[in-house]
């Protein structure tokens, strides 16, 4: 499923990313690698706040819906 569908408090593993190569690389640099566990710690109309490798990262909803998790 897409990361955007996760609820606040939920933790899941990253599977893949559908989108541009350079965005994918940037996400990887920020810790969004396959198998990494991400937790949703906040949500609002702009998008979601995630916890990745102990760092808070804000993503817009469109991007979050292109990151697949299991």
């Amino acid at each position, binding site marked *: 499923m897409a990361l955007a569908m996760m609820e606040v408090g939920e933790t899941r593993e990253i599977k893949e990313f559908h989108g541009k*190569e*350079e*965005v*994918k*690389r*940037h*996400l*990887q*640099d*920020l*810790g969004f*690698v*396959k*198998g*990494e566990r991400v*937790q949703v*710690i*906040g*949500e*609002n*109309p*702009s*998008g979601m*706040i995630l*916890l*990745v*490798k*102990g*760092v*808070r*990262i*804000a*993503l*817009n909803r*469109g*991007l979050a819906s292109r990151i697949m998790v299991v």
Partner: protein
Amino acid sequence: MSYTIALAGNPNCGKTTLFNDLTGSRQRVGNWPGVTVDKKEGTYKKDKGINIMDLPGTYSLSPYSAEEIIARDYIVKEKPDAVIDIVDGTSIERNLYLTLQILETGVPTVIALNMMDEVEARGDKIGAEKLSEIFGVPVVPIVARNGKGILELMAEAVEVAKGKKTPKKLPVFDEKLQGTIDDAKKLLDDAGETDSQWKAIKLLENDENIAGQVTEELKKRVGEVAEKAYGSGADLEAAVADQRYQYIAKVVKDAVKKGTTGHVETKSDKLDKILTNRILALPIFAVVMYLLFACTNSENFLFLGINSPGIWLAGIVESIWGWLTDLVAGLVGGASPWVYSLVVDGIMEGLGAILGFIPLVLVLYILISFLEDCGYMARIAFVLDRIFRRFGLSGRSFIPLLQGFGCSVPAVMATRTLESEKDRKITTILAGFMPCGAKLPIFALFVSTLFVDSNQTLVTYSLYIFSIVVAIIVSLLLNKFVYKDGASNFIMELPQYRIPTLKSILIHGWEKVKGFAVKAGTVIFVSTILIWFLSGFNFDSFNGTNAAESEDGSVMCEMNDSFMASIGNVIAPIFKPLGFGEWRPAVGVVTGWIAKENVVVTFAQLYDEDVTDEYLEEYFAQYSSEELEELGFEDGEYDAEAAGDIYSEGVLFEGGDENALPHMKDDIKTKAAAYAYMVFNLLCMPCFAAVGAMKRELKTWKETGKAVAVQMVTAYVVALLVNVVGGLFL
């Protein structure tokens, strides 16, 4: 022997704080990713032979945005003698990802473990010795904020630089990947490439920048190597990233003891629950913005009936300047008329017209820097993302635009952190629409002179709203007709909330005052003299005609016959449809391009004629005798002797503003025209310094020209609408 030591690390890990510690300089520090957008050099306080280079933050050596390229290129191409890799101890895993890449380049490196105060407060323990053993480079724990550990850090860095200690190769990748890297490296070595190890990895990672630097042939052969090992279409990039992170996980397990397992809710998380709340976030933002302007520019601060800190300070500065002007006037009183005119009417009057506004801008700056330092800025950008998206931008554009309220130059530079080219171009244009500190005096002058009987605060606020509305419309239009590539992403790290240090706030304030003093002493000062000269002289000043004709032998001429009038009269017709087609306002627009402060400086000089008896008589002729009596004339009869006082107390300065220039009314006759003039100056081309910054960001003069053209056309069309439509109502 002199060494250059570069500071590298993730955004917001404390590089600039450390740089300021080491060099004693005062660079901007802020608590959001993207504060430093350019490299900055300084010398080490304790050893002038050592140069320190502050770099923009970067998450990896494969850059994503423009300022990251600067950091990467510096490390890889210019090759400092050593790099201090600053690692934020509170997010060590993510930070070490860049560390591995820096070590791969083979540059002599020292690792600084920063934010150790916060690490300790969390109860985490980081084994610096263990890390040093693993990575084979010195690791020094520091607290950049209070200078703890930086002497040891520098000692190690100098040692490493002297010894040219190239870090050892780490067992980051598995056998298969390392084998592939070695094969690629061999190809590069054979082709005579330098930095083959690092380039091999980057090529396998598909880094376009590096791919562009080697020959097609070489690229193809590296591709073949990858294909042989992994099959075609394999995602080596993901494999590289993945294995780096796996290696880091092992390192962290060995060297770091977490105080708690799992994620515990921190203060920052709690604050975020409120400040980025789906319902509360926007109202809170609105209140914060309101407070920002209330503190700066309100005569009824928080409805308490007192002046805001900004206005209060402005009053003090103005009285000091007034006192100084009197003093100077006394000193040059005996000198020849033109010297007096230059010093008192030109320089003192001109600079005085803008000096009073420094405190306003200063207060605004300090408040903005407070927002930056506490960590709220990144949150606002996120919260506004949804709204900005509707206008075709990302929430990140908010940061440059807010900075535009202070000054357009840093605002334009801040567009560098925007990831999409479209956003950068549009935001650069929009930044020019913002009511920067130098435009404030224009509004104040106009409001106090031409909107005497209106709600002045409302008129000023309406201009702020105006700039935002115009920015939105222009962004929508540009998105629709010019830049059609879709919406950009929003990815931003949200730093911890931190209480700003007094030092950092004072630095912001001090830099602003210093910057203004320099500008006032150079550009504006020269402009002032130029305006004085052009408006006081003409060709007859130099052939003796003026001297022969005037009573006191002065070579100066009537303003209406001056050079300035001749120039102004040529361009004035352009502005006729906007309601201010006279030479003086036209000249004001032009001098404003040198520096926006000049608009007011120009007006202060050009409209500085005393209120004459004829003017007064004409002015009061419009009133009936009852009205005259109400104004203070005895028996409702016009009295030339009392007129002067009544005019200044009863008519003009009801708002109590001694800076008003009554003669402006002769040229700008209606409120619609006055508003159009303010709007035109608000939106048209910013000052040359800002245009220079635009050129740096947009790269070519062609693009810069296009951007300026958009600003000019917008200004003209909107001001025209204001004058025409406003004329029907006002």
